[in-house]
């Protein structure tokens, strides 16, 4: 019943899920959200989880982040990684400046003030917000807020990034740019990313591997490697072809629930 243990199953796995099951409620009202999900994310791998509503994508990320407990199975993280979690909303603390928000995880790790200041500046440069440290979240656009959230998550210095539809609320142009940004940061920092989305094109644009989850209960029903060379463009025919293939599978899965 442990949600995380600190021993890696193998040196080549950043995140390992084996037979993860999650049940909400008890007795007759119990709902099986995840049913025996097994999945390995290699160090530096970008994995996209795609599924229709009710496939337990967010549940899965909560479990890996340690915000919830598994009902069965095991989740293993390499080293003592504390994975960073990003949501569809930036979830910034509105009473703090941009600097203050990025500083929170550093303060919680008791870094000295000078070091914190240096790290905050470096992280804001990484997300192209060096000049906005003194602003408050409400003074920024949606895309900028999400980049602050990314900088704050990177401040955890974690090798594992969990992203729950982080660009779902943004317009297409902003999302496109953020894809480039995320890809750059991911490759520079050699992060392992578990990225949840219902946008199949986004998955094909970003992922090394796309995993399709079924709905109610969530099970892995399909998995495909994406070998298109990077940098990719979301409007390239190769990305479109992968997206079409995954969409076809997704439609079949959704149709199953209509019968």
């Amino acid at each position, binding site marked *: 019943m442990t949600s995380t243990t600190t021993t890696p199953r193998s040196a080549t796995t950043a995140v390992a899920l084996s037979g993860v099951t999650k049940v909400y409620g008890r007795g007759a009202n119990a709902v099986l959200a995840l049913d025996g999900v097994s999945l390995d994310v290699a160090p530096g791998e970008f994995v996209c989880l795609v599924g229709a509503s009710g496939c337990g994508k967010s549940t899965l990320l909560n479990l890996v982040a340690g915000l919830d407990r598994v009902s069965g199975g095991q989740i293993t993280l390499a080293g003592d990684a504390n994975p960073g979690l990003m949501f569809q909303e930036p979830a910034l603390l509105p*009473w703090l400046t941009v600097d203050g928000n990025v500083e929170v995880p550093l303060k919680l790790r008791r870094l000295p003030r000078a070091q914190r200041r240096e790290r905050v500046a470096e992280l804001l440069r990484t997300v192209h917000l060096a000049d906005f440290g003194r602003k408050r979240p409400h003074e920024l656009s949606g*895309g900028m807020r999400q980049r602050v959230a990314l900088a704050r998550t990177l401040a955890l210095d974690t090798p594992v990034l969990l992203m729950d539809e982080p660009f779902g609320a943004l317009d297409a142009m902003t999302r496109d740019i953020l894809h480039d940004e995320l890809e750059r940061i991911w490759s520079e920092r050699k992060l392992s990313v578990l990225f949840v989305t219902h946008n199949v094109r986004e998955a094909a644009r970003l992922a090394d591997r796309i995993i399709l989850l079924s709905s109610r209960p969530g099970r892995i029903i399909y998995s495909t490697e994406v070998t298109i060379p990077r940098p990719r463009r979301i409007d390239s025919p190769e990305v479109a072809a992968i997206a079409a293939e995954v969409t076809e599978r997704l439609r079949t899965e959704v149709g199953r629930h209509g019968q």
Partner: protein
Amino acid sequence: MASDTLTSSARTDAEITGLDALEIAGRDKEVSRGARIWAATWPKLAALAIAIAAWQLVVLSGWKPPYSLPGPLEVGRELMTQAQGPQLWDGLLTTLRRAAVGYVFSVAVGLLLGLAVARSTVLRAAIGSMITALQTMPSIAWFPLAILLFELSEKAIFFVVVLGAAPSIANGVISGVDYVPPLLIRAGRNLGARGLNLYRYVIAPAALPAIVAGLKQGWAFSWRSLMAGELLVVGISQTSLGAQLTYSRELSDSPWLLSTMIVILVVGLVVDAAFGAADKAIRRRWGVLDQAGQ
């Protein structure tokens, strides 16, 4: 794995900066400080002038004889006289000291009680609704019991002031903690804030607007209870604003009575303005000031 994304980075840099500039353009609208103060002040001055004019008109109409309802000029002169003697200041000092002691104690009780109820489901089930019930109880209804318990003493006043103010403050804390967005708590936990740190970094600051609202309401209740108490519990040797109201009525000295009322009103307004400023500062930080239309 991608290692060659740098080729596109120059384009991306320019695009990002451009998009940011477009998206936050025109969000900064600055109004000069003087204009802001004037905009906030003139309606208040105008309202004051209208109130004084109405008062003078009622006096001129001869509705009541001048010895029971004096005009603004006479009351103003009395206020000046009072301001030069020690009596008003002694009374004001006593009243403010009682208010401060009672309020500070109420804040301590209210914050602790509110936090305890917000945290514990058992406590909430037990006394959550009782706190609201206490809040609806008119504080003057406590005085007979308070006088039986503590006789005509300052303790009786203190007892009623705390009973009046603490429930409002506790309710502010409870609703503040209840309405902290769950997303912020999840984010805080993921960033490494657990236990006490979660309160320090996320819950307490997120609940602050509601807590300030509770503190403000608590002040209003404690000030009212204090005035009621000082009117009823006059046996004490010390002078106070409430006692001066009672004496002036007994002596039929209506200019003194009205000038004392004005002092009470001004104290209330000053404290209310302080809470208003705190509330505004919080809303400005949170970026919700514009939505309130101010």
